[in-house]
C-alpha cells in the first residue's frame, strides 16, 4: 500500500520560499497569484495491505521524523494500492 503525506509550515510561520515563488508568478504576469506556500510531499511505499495498520504507521512516522511539530503541520493526503 502507498501513502501520500503532505507537510507544510504552520500558517503563522513565515515561508520566504513561497513568497519568492509568489513574486515570480507576478513577475511572469500572473498578477492574480496573491499567496504561495511551499511544502513537501512524501510518497511512502508500505509493506502492508491493511489500511488501519498503514495509517497507524504513517502517523507515527509523521510525528517522529517527517514533520517537526514546532514549525510544521502534516496531513495524510491519501492511501493507494
Amino acid at each position, binding site marked *: 500500500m502507498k501513502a501520500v503525506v503532505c507537510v507544510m509550515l504552520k500558517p503563522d*510561520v*513565515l515561508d*520566504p*520560499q513561497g513568497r519568492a515563488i509568489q513574486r515570480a508568478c507576478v513577475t511572469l504576469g500572473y498578477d492574480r497569484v496573491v499567496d504561495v506556500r511551499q511544502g513537501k510531499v512524501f510518497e511512502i511505499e508500505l509493506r502492508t495491505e491493511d489500511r488501519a495498520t498503514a495509517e497507524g504507521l504513517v502517523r507515527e512516522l509523521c510525528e517522529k*521524523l517527517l514533520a517537526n511539530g*514546532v*514549525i510544521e503541520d502534516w496531513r495524510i493526503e491519501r492511501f493507494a494500492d
Partner: protein
Amino acid sequence: MFAVIQFPGSNDDRDMRFAMKSVLGVAAELVWHKNPELPPGTAGVLLPGGFSYGDYLRCGAMARFSPVMTAVRRFAEAGGPVLGTCNGFQVLCEAGLLPGALLRNRDLDFLCDWIHVRVEHAGAPFLSRARAGQVLRLPIKHGEGRYAIAADALAGLEAGGQVLLRYCTPAGAVDETANPNGSIGNIAGVRNAAGNVMGLMPHPEHAVEALTGGTDGLALLGSLVDAVTAAGRSR
C-alpha cells in the same frame, strides 16, 4: 575531556577540536556518531557545524537519530554541559534538547559574514567570561538560521532568561537592521531550562585567534572550559 561529535557531513569538527585543544589547551576528541557511548571522562559535549546527513529532510533531523545522540541525551539529562553551534544547534532543537526550530533565512540567502551579538545573560557554564550587555563579534555561515518558536513558548524563554544571545548592531542595539536571518526576537543563541544545554548559530570556534579575525569566541568556549575545570571533571 571534551567530546566533539562527528556526524557524516559535519565540517567544523576539526576547527572545534583545534579551538579547544590548541588554543584553550584542554583535551578534546572527535567522536564518530556511530558510537553508542561517549568516551570515558567526557566532561563536555560539543556539536559542531556542518551539514549532517546533507541537511536532508530538515537540518539536523537525521542526526538526532544517530546512535551517539542517545548518549548525548543521557549526558545532558545528567546535567553535563552540551554546546551546539550552527548545525549542532539545529540538531539539538530537532532532538528536543533545546526549544524552537531553525528555518530558511528570511531573505533566502546563504549568509557568510561577521555579525555582532549581545550577551543577554552572563554566567556559567557558557558565558562566565562575558558580562551582560557585552557585544561579541562572531562569524555566521548558514542558510537555515532563522530561529522560530511559538509565541507562548517564546514568552516562557524570555521569562526564564533562556535567550542568551541576540543579533545586534556593533554598538549593541537590538533592532531589525542587525537581524541577519529574520530570527524571532533577534535570537542568536538559547539555553534549555536547566541551563546546561546551549545552541547558537554563530561560530565561536572560528573566532579564537586574532590572525583569523578575532577572539570573541573564547568568551563562550573559554567559559565552558572554566565550568568543566571548576567541576573537577576536566582531563
